[in-house]
């Protein structure tokens, strides 16, 4: 049974909000907030409906022909739903956060319009059923994030925007060339029709390898694989909710998700393994993980440190994919979700410190745990999760990664894991130490750079609760990993599909 309207409606909830927001006047604060929150909640409900339906064995498909042999296809599968669920959940949280963050700042209409467009493209990426549709939303994402990155409008932001575009548009173009070439070779490939490429026979393997590399290049830009990561730290000039979204679900994750799609649903893990491309992926991921962690260690400001940490953490997903075997796959997929939850928490907290206390540098954070306990707890949860300590979600990812490495007979990966965890600890633990154990302005030593009192609690409620909520989710994803509908459960579901022929 096929229901076309559900994926369409999910896409439409954020897409239709865009013209409405642009139509509202700048000062219609309440209407805009209601619209944003309403749409975000409807989307969460719709995605939940689809998850429920998928477990019941329903299939959702919507397609029409764009030009000869090219179809626009929205299709719901477990992998896509994982991503859609993540983005709709975090959209809700980030919308709340952004409303608080941008209170009284100019250009809010423009911000929220493009913000919704950005989420619409993310959901489009999640629900895309073939490479053409994926590409469509992938490029739309680039377009919709540009105004968000340059939102502040000062020279630094504009330069960061230019660099961002240079990287991502070139990446998109390279991806387009690869997708067109694949299309010329085999026609329209829907995700999941892995046998189409496998059936081509060994004489096509050379060409397929080249195409894989081209598409990996295109996707790697957004996934911030070293050496294509240059735009990410610079894009930090964007407002905190944008950074949060960019790092947790939107841009970086879209790249990683694209690589997952490429490996599992276009080439198929078997063919990729046969072509010897998994080893290559593992090497790239290792380099990125270690390089990102090293650079993070060298940063003195909070947001750049988090940014380089993203470079490193997203590559865990790639590393998981590159481990041939169910455990590796589960690790990669589950980290797609976990990293999003944890990273978004960290960015919310960084934004809170900046808004409430004016803190940007790490050495200014002394004793902030006392001034802002809830935020600091949330930050601690996120940081411990990143290091991989139980019971936070990050532990599950690393555990499965380790098992995957054993299964794939690549024991050196465990060494990489240990090294990177140590590095993670090295750049997160000092922050935690400063937060909780170093006396600071809250103990009467020195002064916060620019303290404001934004709300009844330690900061404005709009800023606080999203951070607390995502931190809770990160813990729950780890604690309740064994229950149905948890990220791990979904990932296992996807993996089971992948490995049963």
């Amino acid at each position, binding site marked *: 049974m096929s229901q076309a309207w559900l994926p369409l409606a999910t896409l439409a909830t954020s897409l239709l909000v865009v013209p409405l927001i642009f139509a509202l006047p700048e000062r219609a604060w309440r209407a805009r907030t209601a619209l944003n929150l309403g749409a975000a909640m409807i989307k969460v409900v719709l995605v939940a409906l689809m998850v429920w339906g998928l477990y019941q064995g329903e299939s959702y498909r919507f397609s029409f022909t764009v030009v000869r042999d090219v179809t626009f296809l929205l299709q719901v599968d477990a992998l896509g739903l994982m991503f859609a669920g993540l983005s709709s959940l975090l959209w809700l949280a980030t919308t709340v956060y952004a409303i608080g963050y941008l209170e009284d700042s100019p250009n809010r209409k423009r911000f929220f319009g493009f913000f919704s467009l950005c989420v619409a493209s993310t959901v489009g990426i999640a629900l895309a059923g073939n490479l053409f549709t994926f590409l469509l939303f992938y490029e739309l994402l680039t377009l919709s994030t540009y105004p968000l990155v340059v939102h502040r409008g000062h020279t630094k932001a504009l330069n960061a925007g230019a660099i961002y575009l240079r990287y991502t548009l070139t990446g998109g*173009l390279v991806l387009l060339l690869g997708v*067109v070439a694949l299309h010329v070779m085999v026609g329209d490939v829907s995700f999941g029709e892995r046998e189409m490429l496998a059936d081509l026979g060994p004489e096509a393997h050379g060409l397929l390898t080249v195409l894989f590399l081209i598409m990996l290049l295109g996707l790697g830009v957004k996934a911030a694989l070293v050496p294509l990561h240059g735009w990410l730290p610079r894009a930090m000039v964007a407002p905190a909710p944008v950074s949060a979204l960019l790092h947790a679900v939107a841009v970086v994750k879209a790249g990683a998700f694209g690589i997952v799609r490429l490996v599992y649903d276009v080439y198929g893990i078997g063919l990729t393994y046969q072509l010897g491309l998994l080893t290559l992926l593992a090497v790239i991921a290792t380099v990125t993980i270690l390089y990102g962690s090293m650079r993070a260690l060298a940063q003195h400001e909070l947001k750049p440190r988090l940014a380089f940490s993203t470079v490193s953490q997203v590559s865990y997903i790639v590393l998981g994919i590159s481990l041939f075997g169910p455990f590796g796959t589960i690790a990669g997929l589950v980290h797609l979700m976990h990293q999003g939850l944890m990273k978004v928490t960290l960015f919310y907290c960084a934004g809170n410190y900046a808004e409430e206390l004016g803190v940007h540098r790490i050495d200014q954070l002394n004793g902030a745990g006392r001034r802002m306990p809830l935020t600091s707890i949330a930050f601690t949860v996120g940081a411990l999760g990143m290091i991989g300590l139980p019971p936070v979600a990050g532990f599950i990812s690393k555990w499965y990664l380790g098992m995957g490495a054993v299964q794939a007979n690549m024991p050196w990966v465990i060494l990489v894991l240990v090294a990177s965890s140590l590095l993670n600890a090295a750049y997160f633990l000092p922050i935690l130490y400063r937060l909780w154990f170093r006396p600071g302005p809250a103990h009467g030593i020195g002064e916060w750079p620019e303290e404001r009192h934004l709300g009844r609690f330690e900061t404005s409620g709009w800023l606080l609760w999203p951070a607390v909520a995502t931190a809770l989710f990160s813990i729950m994803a780890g604690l309740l990993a064994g229950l149905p509908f948890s990220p791990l459960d979904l990932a296992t579901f996807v993996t089971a599909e992948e490995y049963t022929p």
Partner: protein
Amino acid sequence: MIERLGGDFGAVLLVLGLPVLLGGLAACWPPRRSWPIVSFSLLPLLALAWLAHLVLAQGGQTWHIELGSLTLQWRANGLTLLLLLLTQVITLSSAAYAPAYLLEEIGEEGKQLWLWPLQGVLTTSLSLIWLAGDLLTLYIGLELMGLAAVGLMLLPGRVDALAAGMRYLLLALVGSLAFLLGVALLLGAWGRLDLTGLALAAEPGMVLWVAVALLSAGLLLKAAAFPLHAWLAPVHASAWTPVSALHASLVVKGSFFIALQLWLVLVPEARVAAWLVGGLGAAAVVWGGLLAWRAAKLKDVVAWSTVSQLGYLLLGFSLLIGTTPQVAEVAWEGTWLQLAAHSLAKAGMFLATGNLIYSTGESHVSGLAGASRRMPLSLLSFGIAAISLIGLPPSAGFTAKWLLLHASLEAGYWLWMAALALGTLLSAAYIFRVFRYSFVEDAEPLDYRGVPWSMELCALMLALASLLLGLVAEWPLMLLRAAGGGA
């Protein structure tokens, strides 16, 4: 003569005659608002619907019109319908844009009244070109179009407009002389002017080559193809906005259409020559993009981008001529889709540019600093049209580029893929240069004039059409396939 042609010829006559008639009427009773223009413009659209009904029901149509001992041949197929529709939609939008523009921006200076009949003549001559099946009709259409276009360019009446217009006039006249010389050679050698007859009769040889070279040189000059493009931007810089929109989106395409038509008829196997034209196209893509990137004035950016975008169309020559049927089939659709996409997007972009200049009072790109603070609708229209020009999804420009890439890859023309890729990056560069200025926050606040809503709406509609056409591209392409418009 018309009786023998049957009733269906009435539809053709209506399609051709109504624009001139309406233009004349508008000159007598100049419209002050947009709605009378829109409602009267439904008439030619209805005539077109009648023609479309005939063509879709009975397949491609041909009419022989006998004037004494002279026989003209006109025909209508899917491609004709597509181009006619495009012409009417764009003319309608630019005409609906005009009253408010004339009233607010131009005031009483200039010869406003002439705008309407000249627009009518332009539409008719373009329709004649799309319908023409012989070289004489093409020549008449081409000349009418050229003269009407020059007349429209001269309307502002300022020194710079006149100087640019004079230059354009001389170039157009030279172009038509080259065209006429080519036609003379063809007529002298094979004694016929109808394209179907020439396709059968023409034999390769010196005469054919010289004739095609002369014809192409004349047409490519008029189409502002790469080495012959220098006249384009000065002409646009001083022209009225709705005229620029018409010119960039339709007039240059008329010449391109004739050139492609003639090549397909006369030298369908000339692979090397077509490759050379494709090379010119690739150079145009790059050079036009660079010029647009460096341009200081907003209108120049848009005008030079036309040169770059026409390069994509010239690539179509090399993909259509002397290639395998599979490649030609894809390239055929890609070329026409690109033409439609660029026409809609460029018209929308020119109108949006006119609105931006109107509301900020600045004609330089740097004058837009901080414009997005107010998030004027014109900037949005500009952006939407730009998506199609850059070729980002889901615009028609993207779908067309997809098809062209597909064809180049299948034909093994790697260089063209590189040109398409480079063109994309360059167009992104010059478009986002404009946007970069608009996002500047610390600029001095500008005085904005409110843009009349009819002007905003026209620009937005065209831009949206170019965007959405990308998703429903199958529909116009089906038209192309259904009614015998094949290569």
